[in-house]
């Protein structure tokens, strides 16, 4: 899995591409988030448009990231959820936990 990172108006935008699944994508996401937080990032926006598959481990990693960022006084929000990824979050009611956006400008302004 490849994860692009950039900063826009104080918000770190991560864009993973591929599968966020056990043993592969979940580890890559954890490392990318850790790297950004250690580098001083506070607010994270994860652009999910390139995510093709997400299993329960990937979901767990998102939840862990949410908790970590929140505990550090920051916010984690999601952008461009593909329909199948949205379904995975919806059926476990995590869609009520994450703020999600379809427009990056709007998402960045919301922090």
């Amino acid at each position, binding site marked *: 899995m490849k994860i692009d990172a950039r900063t826009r108006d104080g918000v770190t935008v991560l864009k993973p591409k591929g599968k966020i699944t056990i043993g592969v994508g979940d580890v890559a996401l954890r490392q990318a988030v850790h790297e950004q937080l250690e580098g001083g990032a506070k607010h994270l926006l994860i652009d999910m448009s390139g995510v093709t598959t997400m299993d329960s481990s990937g979901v*767990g990693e998102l939840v862990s990231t949410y*908790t970590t960022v929140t505990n550090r006084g920051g916010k984690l929000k999601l952008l461009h959820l593909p329909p199948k990824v949205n379904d995975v979050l919806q059926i476990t009611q995590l869609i009520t936990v994450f703020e999600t956006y379809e427009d990056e400008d709007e998402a960045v302004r919301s922090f």
Partner: protein
Amino acid sequence: MPSDHLHFKLAIDSRFENIELVQVVVNDSLERLGLGEDERHWVDLAVREAVANAIKHGNRGEAGKKVEIDLAVEGDEVVVQVADEGEGFDPGTVNDPRAPENLLRPDGRGLFYMQSFMDRVDYAVRSEGGTVVTLRKQVGGPARNGGPDEAEPPGTTGGERGEGTKR
């Protein structure tokens, strides 16, 4: 249903990267059975969860222990069995991941997802040791959107129960 004679067995070492191999074989088989892309996605995800559980919780990541995957067609159902060499598993010990107190837990959703993506999920303890989870999905029947259904809370569709750990 086309290819109703289709049947394969696969045994893998307990390594997460082997799930990708299982996915390729399962996806190809489901395509030959005529399942559409959406339906294949959800069955594949359920099988992924079952194999990941078998590796992580059943075989506790011991690479030398095997996970066996058996895919067959029974009537109008595709039936996937995933067996491990672990100590058994009680689905009744798994909490509902949608409960407010569990929403922010990083784990405990795998079984719920399997039940949501498939028509039926059963657990049994093998006489030779280990757990076998059986996933069933009707195919080739009335038009279905293939999407996930709202599952019953974990533990409500289990088969025989053994001693085990939470998944």
